[in-house]
C-alpha cells in the first residue's frame, strides 16, 4: 500500500463518518433549523465521496444545486415558519417509534440481502476508466447524445414544479383574502 492509497482511505473514512453522523443528526435534532444545517454537512461530505469516485461534475452540482440553492430555500421556509421544535424522543420511545426502528432495520437487511444476492459475486472486478470519466465535457456529451430524452423531460419536470409552486402560493393568498373578508 503506497502513501496515496492510504491518504485516499483516510479521506474516505472522514467523509463517510461525517456523512453518517450528520445524517443521524438530521433525524435526531429537535429544531428543524439545526436539522437543515446538518443536512448541508451531509451533502458536502457526500460531494467528497463523489470526488473519490471520480464524479467531478456531480460533486460540483451537488454543492451548487443541493447544498447551495435547495438548502437556502429550506432555510428560508424554516425561518418563515419559525423553528418550531418537536421533541422526537421526549418521554421515552412510543410504540410507533419502536415499530419505525424495526421497519428501518428490516429495510437495511432487505437492501443488503438484495444487493448481495444480485451482485455479490461481481463486486470485485473493477472497470478501468479514462482520465475524462465524469468530467463536465463527458457528462455534457452523454446528456446531448444518448440521454437527450431524459434531459428534455428533466426541463419539463422543473417547469411543472415551478408552475405548481406559483399556483400553491396563489391559492393560499386567495384563502388569506377570504379569511380577511369574513
Amino acid at each position: 500500500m503506497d502513501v496515496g492509497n492510504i491518504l485516499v482511505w483516510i479521506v474516505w473514512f472522514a467523509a463517510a463518518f461525517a456523512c453518517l453522523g450528520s445524517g443521524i443528526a438530521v433525524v435526531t435534532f429537535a429544531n428543524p433549523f439545526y436539522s437543515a444545517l446538518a443536512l448541508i454537512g451531509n451533502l458536502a461530505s457526500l460531494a467528497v465521496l463523489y470526488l473519490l469516485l471520480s464524479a467531478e461534475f456531480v460533486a460540483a452540482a451537488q454543492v451548487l444545486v443541493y447544498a447551495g440553492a435547495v438548502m437556502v430555500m429550506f432555510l428560508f421556509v424554516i425561518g418563515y415558519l419559525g423553528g418550531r421544535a418537536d421533541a422526537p424522543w421526549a418521554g421515552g420511545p412510543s410504540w410507533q417509534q419502536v415499530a419505525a426502528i424495526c421497519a428501518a432495520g428490516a429495510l437495511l437487511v432487505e437492501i443488503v440481502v438484495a444487493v448481495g444476492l444480485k451482485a455479490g459475486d461481481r463486486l470485485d472486478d473493477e472497470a478501468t476508466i479514462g482520465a475524462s470519466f465524469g468530467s463536465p465535457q463527458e457528462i455534457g456529451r452523454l446528456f446531448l447524445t444518448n440521454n437527450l430524452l431524459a434531459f428534455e423531460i428533466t426541463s419539463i419536470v422543473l417547469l411543472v414544479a415551478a408552475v405548481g409552486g406559483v399556483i400553491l402560493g396563489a391559492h393560499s393568498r386567495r384563502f388569506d383574502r377570504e379569511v380577511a373578508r369574513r
Partner: protein
Amino acid sequence: MMGPEVTWYLIVASILFTIGALGVLVRRSPLIVLLSLEIMLNGANLALIAFARHQGDADGQIFALTVMAVAASEVVVGLGLIVAMSRRRLPLDVDRMTTLRG
C-alpha cells in the same frame, strides 16, 4: 482503483438510506420529513455513482443528476404545500394531517 472498493460505498449508501427512512417514519414535523427524504435520495445517488465508477459507465452519473433535478422539484412542491398548510393554520404535524380536505 485507489482507496475503498465499491462494497464500502454501498454499505454507506444503504445505511444512509435507512437513516432517511427512519426519519420519514419517526418524525412528525413535515419539514424534517422532507429533509429525511433528501437523505434517502442521496443514499440512492451514492449507490448510483459508486456503480457507475465500478462499471466504468457514466450513465449512472447521468441518472444521479436527473435524480437531483427531480429532488429539487420535489422540494419546491413540498415546501409550497407546507407554507400553504401553515397559512391555513393547519397543524404542522403529519400525524394530525389525516384528511385531504383543507
